């Protein structure tokens, strides 16, 4: 097994090196004009320059802050509302169908509406992120509560638990796997909407920075921004996966 993963690692690094090499060959051969498509070394140089003293670091932090704030807001509201609707069968019957109806609506379609109410402001971007990332959490919580083993509800009645205790002690833990998976999806959506919001409303951040770089044909800066955005997405989803595994350890052992 150890041997196998070493092989995988070596092959993986080999594949990555090959990828960068092909990228370099394509740009060196000028298959695409270097104005549009910088080679790996120019991208790396722009990345290093931007992160050490350039504007890129500040923009990265702005985007991360926006993404996290929107995501936290969405998680909080989504799980709270989901718990309130999910715990009562009657509320589910009345409210869940409308939520299902609204779900396929692209979150970005709400941007013009948000602009109409809030103008081109940081609040607008935050509201759009929170609104878009809300749905996975909200629906996962409702579904998780609905899918709870019915006998647990009976047990809670026998024990005379209050509604709050039922949510906290039974329903939330049993819905946890679905909620955690939706948190990860929500973070991906938050990053996308943070970038879109920055592009549209010209708020400081990576989205605005890469759009400006593309308009003035500074393609190395553009690619450096894309590399950072990919890294943010990668680190975010990896951290949440680790948290997921830790928080769900009790589940793996109890089965």
């Amino acid at each position: 097994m150890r041997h196998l993963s070493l092989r995988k690692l070596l092959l993986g690094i080999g594949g990555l090196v090959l990828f960068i090499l092909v990228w370099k060959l394509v740009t060196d051969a000028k298959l695409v004009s270097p104005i549009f498509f910088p080679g790996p070394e120019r991208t790396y140089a722009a990345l290093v320059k931007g992160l050490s003293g350039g504007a890129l670091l500040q923009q990265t932090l702005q985007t991360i802050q926006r993404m996290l704030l929107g995501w936290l807001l969405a998680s909080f509201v989504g799980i709270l509302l989901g718990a309130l609707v999910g715990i009562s069968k009657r509320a589910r019957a009345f409210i869940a169908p409308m939520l299902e109806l609204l779900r396929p609506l692209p979150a970005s379609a709400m941007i013009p509406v948000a602009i109409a109410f809030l103008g081109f402001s940081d609040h607008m971007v935050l509201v759009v992120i929170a609104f878009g990332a809300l749905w996975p959490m909200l629906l996962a919580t409702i579904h998780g509560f609905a899918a709870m083993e019915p006998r647990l509800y009976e047990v809670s009645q026998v024990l005379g638990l209050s509604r709050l205790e039922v949510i906290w002690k039974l329903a939330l833990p049993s819905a946890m796997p679905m909620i955690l998976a939706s948190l990860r999806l929500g973070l991906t959506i938050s990053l996308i909407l943070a970038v879109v919001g920055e592009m549209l409303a010209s708020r400081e951040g990576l989205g605005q920075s890469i759009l400006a770089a593309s308009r003035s044909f500074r393609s190395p800066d553009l690619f450096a921004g894309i590399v950072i955005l990919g890294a943010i997405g990668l680190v975010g989803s990896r951290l949440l996966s680790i948290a997921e595994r830790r928080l769900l350890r009790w589940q793996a052992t109890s089965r």
Partner: protein
Amino acid sequence: MSAAALLKSGWRAALLPVALVVVAQVAATVSHLESDSLASPFDIARAFVSVIADGSLLRATADTLKAAAVGCVLGVGGGSFLGIVLGLSRIADDALDLTIELLRPIPVVALIPVVMMLLGFGVEMEIVIIALGLLWPAVVLARAAVKEVEPRLMEVSNMLQLSFIARLTKIVLPAILPQLFMSLKLAAGYGLVVAVTVEITANPLGLGYGIMMAQQALRPAEMFAYLIWIGAIGWLVSAALNAAQRNFFPAFVKGEGR
């Protein structure tokens, strides 16, 4: 579900939306609403009729759906092919796994400026972005599906010394067809989202541009008409694909545990 049962449970589902519309209309009428950001349901309905009548809504819908469909076919087709190759070849899979894991988290909207620079505005740029956005999920789903194909079928294909093409068309593709359809179904919904996002952000085309223009022209009724229409299109596309899946792959839908 019988008609009677649908009626019985349906009134609860319909109560909230209908109540919201009525309350909004009453509030707008009572307050003599004149606003740059809000519109009464009646005005929205009137705006909807007028954009249908002048053909702009249907033209925008056709543009968006065309871009989403072509992008979807390209993205899912290319992604599934790559996924199948990776699923069949251990070496290719191990070699590309790391690179794919690094490329996958790049948010698709980050590619808008790149593709815009290369192709300018227009339907091609939108199609390319949609296809790129749908590529990685399709790779992952197809790869997982191929790895779950009954190993004995693979042994049989080795025994028969089938060529790669023959193995693909006779063994692998029939075995993973239901998963491929599911992949397409997920992609269609996501493709529409990406299409609208690209149109709102950059591309002067389609429904996303329509809703953006309505907002900038301070015509809230038209903006909400577009919004509701975009939601309805998304809902219709997903309902149609769900129905198709139930028809073509009934066993698989049950397996999904619904």
